[in-house]
C-alpha cells in the first residue's frame, strides 16, 4: 500500500464510509463544484470606481484617474517626479507600447529585475470591495514586474473593475477559462508588523503601489 492509499483509507475509515468511493459521493462533489455557491457577503454599493479608489487608498495605495490611455504616461511621469523617483521602468509589453517617450519616460518591455526601481503593469481585473488588483501570470504579463521593484504602477481600465472577488472569478471563467500558473491579488504595498507589532510598509514586495484608473 502506498502512503496515498493509506491516508485515503484512514480518512474513509474516519468518515465511517464504505471502503471505496461511491458514485453518490462523486456526484455530490461534482454538484457542489458546479453550483459555485456564493456565500453571504457585504453589499458593494454606489459607484464602483469611487469605491475601488477609496479602498485602494485604505490599503495604502496611491491613486490617480485619467480620461484615456494616452493620458497615462503624463500622469505616471508626474507621480514619479513628485516622489523623486527615476523616470524609467520595466513594463508589460502592452503597457510599454503607450507613448511614454513624449512624457519624458524611458520604459522597457521586459520582466523586471531585482535592481529595477519602477515596474508598470496592467491588470486582469480589479476588485472594488477591497481595493484589490487581480493579475494573471503569462508570457506577456510577468508577475515579477509587480513584485521586485520598489514602486509598482498599475493601470486599471474602469471597465475592468468588478464589485467583488466572486464576480472576478466568474468573469475570469468566462474570458480566460483555466487559471494561469499564478493568480496574484495585490492590495496595496507589502507590509509587516513582525517587530513589536508595529506596522511597517515595504517588507519584501513594493514600498509603493500607485493605481491609475483609466476612464
Amino acid at each position, binding site marked *: 500500500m*502506498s*502512503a496515498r492509499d493509506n*491516508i*485515503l483509507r*484512514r*480518512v*474513509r475509515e*474516519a*468518515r*465511517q*464510509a464504505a471502503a471505496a*468511493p461511491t458514485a453518490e*459521493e462523486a456526484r*455530490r*462533489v461534482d454538484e*457542489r*463544484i458546479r453550483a*459555485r455557491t*456564493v*456565500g*453571504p*457577503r*457585504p453589499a458593494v454599493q454606489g459607484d464602483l470606481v469611487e469605491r475601488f479608489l477609496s479602498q485602494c487608498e*485604505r*490599503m495604502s495605495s496611491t491613486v490617480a484617474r485619467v480620461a484615456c490611455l494616452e493620458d497615462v504616461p503624463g500622469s505616471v511621469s508626474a507621480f514619479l517626479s513628485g516622489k523623486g523617483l527615476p523616470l524609467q521602468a520595466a513594463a508589460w509589453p502592452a503597457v510599454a507600447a503607450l507613448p511614454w517617450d513624449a512624457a519624458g519616460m524611458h520604459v522597457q518591455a521586459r520582466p523586471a529585475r*531585482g535592481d529595477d526601481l519602477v515596474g508598470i503593469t496592467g491588470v486582469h481585473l480589479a476588485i472594488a470591495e477591497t481595493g484589490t488588483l487581480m493579475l494573471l*501570470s*503569462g*508570457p506577456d504579463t*510577468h*508577475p*515579477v514586474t509587480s*513584485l521586485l521593484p520598489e514602486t509598482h504602477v498599475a493601470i486599471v481600465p474602469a471597465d475592468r473593475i468588478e464589485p467583488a*472577488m*466572486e464576480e472576478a*472569478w466568474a468573469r475570469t471563467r468566462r474570458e480566460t477559462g*483555466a*487559471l*494561469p*500558473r*499564478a*493568480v496574484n*491579488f*495585490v*492590495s496595496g*504595498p*507589502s*507590509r*509587516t*508588523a*513582525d*517587530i*513589536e*507589532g*508595529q506596522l*511597517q510598509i*515595504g*517588507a*519584501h*514586495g513594493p514600498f509603493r503601489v500607485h493605481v491609475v484608473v483609466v476612464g
Partner: protein
Amino acid sequence: MTEAAQEAFSGTGGPGTARPQGGTFSGRAHDKLHDAKVQRAMRNFNLAAARSRAMAELPELEDIRTAAAAIRDTALADLDVWLERFETEATRRGVKVHWAETHADVNRIVAAIAREAGVRKVIKSKSMVSEESHLNAALEAEGLEVVETDLGEYIIQLAGETPSHIIAPAIHKTREDVADLFHQHHGTPRKTGIPELTMEARAVLRGHFLSGDMGISGGNFLVAETGSVVLVTNEGNGRMVSTMPRVHVAITGIEKVIPTLEDVACVLRVLTRSATGQSISNYVTLATGPKGAGDADGPEEMHVVLVDAGRSTVLGSDMREALRCIRCGACMNHCPVYQNIGGHAYGWVYPGPIGSVLTPSYIGLENAVDLPNAATLCNQCGVVCPVRIPLPDLMRKLREKQVEAGLRPRWERAGLRVWSWFAQRPALYALATRLAARVGRLLGGKRRAIGRLPGGGWTGERDFPAPQGRTFRELYARRPR
C-alpha cells in the same frame, strides 16, 4: 504515542524547529509570567483590537462565519473525495502531488525533491506544518542552506527559537533583541529603529530570494475545483518563494482543501479580518502548476506535499471540528491565558486554545497532559473563531478524557475520591459541609477572607472568600416560603 508523535519528540532540534519543551505547561507558564522581557513584549500585542474594528464594519459577520464553517465541514465530510479531486486537477496542471503519512515522510519527501533537483539553498515562507516535522533541521542535515523569509520567522531562526504565535511568530521578541541578532548575524552596525531593522532584513533577504534554488511555502487552502494552492501573506514572501526559485514545494495538511474559487472568496473575508483586522491581506496568490510555455518567470517544478500526521485520526474523533481551523490566530489573540504567557509555554507548534486542542490530538494526550487545562473556559475563543470551532467544549472533552485515562495528578484523584465518598453519604456530607462552613467563617475573621490555605498555591496570588457560616442546604431549608 503515535508514530508521528514519536518522530516529533525525537527530532534533532536546531534552528527553526519545534522541539517540544521539557516540563509542564504550568511550570513553563510560571517562568513566562516572571520573565520581564516576555511580559514587556506581550504588551505590544494588539491584534484583538484590530479584529474588533474590522468586524464592526461587517454586518454580515455572523452569516459569513456560519458559511465559512459550512464550507470547511463540506470538505471534511467527503475529505478523501475532495483530496482526490484536488490531486487530479493539480496533476493535470503539471503539479507533482506527494502524500506524507508521518512527519518523517514530510522530511524524506522534501529532501528527495531537493536532491533530485540539485538544490543548494532553500528559501521558506511561513509553514507551520513544516515546524511540526522539524523540516529545517532535516534539510540542514542534508547539507542544504535553509533561510526563513517571513520577518518574524527569520528573527527566530537567527535566535535558534521556535514561533510563539502562528501569524506573529516573533511577538515575544523586543526591538532590542532583534537589534542584537541582526548586529551579530549581519555584521552591520547595531540599530534599534524598527523601520531601519525592517529595511536591513529586506536587503539581506532580497539576496536570498534572488539566489534560492527551492522555495518552500505552506498552503492556506487547496482548491479542489482548480488544483490551486492559496497563499496569503502581507510581506510578499509567499509570492517570492513561489515565483523566484526554479522549484516550489507547498506543504500543507490534508484538511486544508475547499471546494471552489467562490469558497476562497468567502473564507478569506473572515480569515484576514480575524487574523490582522484587514479586509484582505496584501497578497493572495493562487499557484496552479509550474511555468507554462513562453512564461518568463515562475518555477520549473511545482510540488504539493499533503500531510496526514494525525489528521485522519482527529477526523474520526470527537475533536473533528478542530480540523475546520483556518489558522487565523484569533483564539490566541483573545485568550487571557495566552496574552499573559505567550506561545512558548504551550510547548509545541500550535499555542493558545487551538493548540490546547490540536497538540494533545496530534502528539497524544499523555504528552500534553495539562494543555486542555491551560484555559479558564471563558469562551472568548469560541466567540471569535471565524469557523465556529467550539474550543471550550473540545477542551472540556479532553479534560474528561484525561480523568478517564487516569492522567490527572495523584493528589487530584485522591481529592475527588474523598469528595465522592462524602457526596454519596448525604447525612455525612451535610455534617462535614456545616462544619467546614463554620470553621471557614472563624478563619476568615473580620476580613471575611482566608489569606492562606493548605498547599498555598491557590492563595499564593489572591484571597479565598471565607464561607459565611451556613451551607447552601441550610439556607435553602430556611428560605421564606
